[in-house]
């Protein structure tokens, strides 16, 4: 709906000018509404070329754009977790086997397999949310990690950390949140790489293997802690090193690929 069409052939010039202004305001609000309601996003091209926005406004718009994308990623995160919970509740009935010593490896492995749904969720985020270059991967990773922290850690910290009693567990949780931020960005990158058809075929097995390593990270860590009977600090350190190794490897693959497709 271009403004030019709406100029009436009849009527005074003043009237016409007033109409144009009104239309412009309507178009502007439609653009905003599109952002808020998550409808098909119109770029500035759809707006009337007759009306230029000031620099300030563009910044505001793009800010909301990224923020909104993160929130969307968070929404998809919540949806994915809901699906996972449904699957877990349906196929893995809670067995109160308190008398059972040690770990039920097969059961734990199958439960960890459900975490593969996270990868599907991330894929949805990456496909569903527009964006270009590095920002796409970063938005998906940060949004996902943000939702994860809000939903799992926030309440614990908010309710517990101000207690009269000092406990190292809150410091540990905070470190762990930083580690999982890196982990989520890494996973998002790997999923994005995996989804690219122009990725070098020789790299695909490596990417797939690393995706699996990301998914079964929690299980592997649990096995490690059980096997070595180490304290929470050692477990945290091992988790940090593990994530760092994955992250650096992913960065290398990503950098190489980004160069080859011309994203700098």
């Amino acid at each position: 709906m271009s403004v030019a069409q709406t100029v009436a052939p009849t009527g005074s010039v003043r009237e016409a000018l007033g109409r144009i202004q009104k239309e412009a305001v309507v178009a502007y609000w439609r653009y905003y509404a599109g952002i808020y309601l998550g409808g098909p996003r119109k770029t500035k091209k759809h707006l009337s070329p007759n009306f230029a926005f000031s620099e300030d406004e563009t910044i505001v718009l793009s800010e909301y754009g990224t923020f909104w994308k993160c929130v969307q990623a968070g929404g998809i995160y919540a949806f994915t977790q809901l699906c996972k919970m449904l699957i877990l509740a349906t196929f893995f009935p809670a067995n109160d086997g308190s008398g059972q010593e040690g770990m039920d490896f097969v059961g734990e492995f199958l439960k960890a397999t459900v975490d593969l749904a996270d990868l599907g969720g991330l894929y949805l985020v990456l496909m569903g949310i527009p964006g270009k270059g590095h920002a796409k991967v970063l938005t998906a990773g940060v949004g996902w990690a943000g939702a994860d922290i809000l939903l799992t850690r926030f309440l614990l910290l908010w309710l517990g950390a101000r207690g009269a009693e000092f406990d190292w567990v809150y410091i540990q949780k905070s470190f762990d949140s930083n580690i999982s931020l890196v982990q989520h960005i890494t996973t998002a990158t790997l999923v994005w790489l995996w989804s690219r058809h122009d990725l070098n075929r020789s790299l695909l097995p490596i990417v797939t293997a690393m995706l699996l390593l990301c998914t079964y990270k929690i299980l592997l860590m649990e096995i490690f802690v059980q096997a070595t009977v180490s304290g929470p600090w050692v477990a945290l350190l091992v988790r940090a090193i593990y994530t760092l190794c994955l992250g650096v490897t992913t960065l290398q693959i990503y950098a190489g690929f980004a160069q080859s497709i011309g994203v700098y």
Partner: protein
Amino acid sequence: MWFEADEIVELFRGYIPYYLLIALPIFIIISPVNPVGASHEFPVYRMQQYDLHGVSHGCRSSPVNLEARSVGGWGTSRHCVVTCLEDITSDQFREICTKAGALLIMLPRHITNLHEEMKKRMMDLEETMMLQEVSIPVYFAEWSPDLQYIVDDISRSFVSDDRAGSATEALMNSVSANGYQIVISTSQATARADVNIATIQGKLSGYGVEEKLPTIAIVAYYDSFGVAPELSFGADSNGSGISLLLELARLFSHLYSSPKSHARYNIIFLLSGAGKLNYQGSKKWLEDQLDGLDSSLIQDASYILCLDTVATSKNLYVHVSKPPRDGSPGALFIKELKDIAEHLYPSVTVDTVHKKINLAEEVLAWEHERYSIRRLPAFTLSSLKSHKDSIRASILDVRENVDVTHLAENTRVIAEALARHIFNLTSGEVFSGTLGVEIDSLRSWLDFLATQPRSAELLAEKSNSLVISLKDAMSRYLKEVKITYQTPDKRDPEFVFYDVTSAIVNVYSVKPAIFDLFLTFAIAVYLGLVYLVIQNFPTIYTTVCKIISSKKVRSQ
């Protein structure tokens, strides 16, 4: 550059950081502070507190909110000393009472099998504690692994306070130390208004006109005493006395129910209350009986037999304040007692101990002195030679330390002597075969009585369940069983009880203020590092890109 045209950066260039600056403190301020969620909670029992004849005894204070320190590490009245009972001496206790803020004592792990020396030390300590008025709150906690860990931790971290080599060492010590805050949030103990000391009486009437027959009274007090009311189970003193009395009631009710063996003697059974507080129950009962308008059987009693701590050993001591005249019923009974012990039960020895009543002392030595003061022939049977034996007022007096076979033997001797005296026999055994002393009955009573603390203040409310069950037991065998309640005078009370006998202690592990400073500093450094990494990420990225392109060049 890398981030230049990026939307992510835009996100942080806008207003969001400023919003965060306002939102985060608001979130932190409105976050709920939950002081109750301590990681350690233990039940604790407060030390005795009572007034007797206007003199205050025991600990006079109850709430605690202080920092925990070890016996060697405390300094000011802002410290609560936390220690094991075995680690504290009487001198240390006296010093803590005058200068420290509070005292929390953990009992030994196995209170039942301590060796003799340890037992003696503990009982001496208990005596010292009760000797004087204590102005600070004193609590006792049962042994638990968590509390043991805390006690160990406290003694480790603060013992080196003054001996640190240098200032930095002392600083490092104070940073790494685990502090504990002891919080016992009770109200200040107040005097209880609703005190009713129950005394239960029952009787077996003899054959004939009741008023014209001679009367014997058998008396035992039913309360116990220890350094903490909730920990004084009093199995031997006076659980054994009650068991013996109830067993005698059972045996004689059997005899009295058949006309053939209905003796010409009235027997009154009395379970008196507040025996550990100068035998208040007996005193009141006696006043009611003697000074009342109706004439009472007790006025012309042949003798009054008090039972106190009768299971410690197979020795029986007859405590008298004035040796009974030869030929009087009391003398006859004592003679029978000695005779039976000598001939039928050689393992039991019977001795007479003569001690004059000392009115100058604060409390009477034995219960019979209450009756002797009113010129009634009375004596106390006990396994203890002296009334000063500390087991009579100790928390170590628990069921496991009482041998029920001693009690059974002593019961047999006493029952036999009573029967001989009542039926005027000179030889032979009355209680044998089906009608004998049942050790199981004694044991079950002892078990029942020793499962709950029976300190006088805990049983002081009206229709206490223990008092009711004792009354029910007595009415099974005896007639005219009734409870009389005694309330202390409002204006000038003979004794005053205080509430708050038990509480919950919360132990918070806290860090010193300097630790918070260090932690804040460390977090700031960490955040700075993370900021630097994010800021310089483009550099890292280009480096990685370079490595990759150089690799590619090489491979080509």
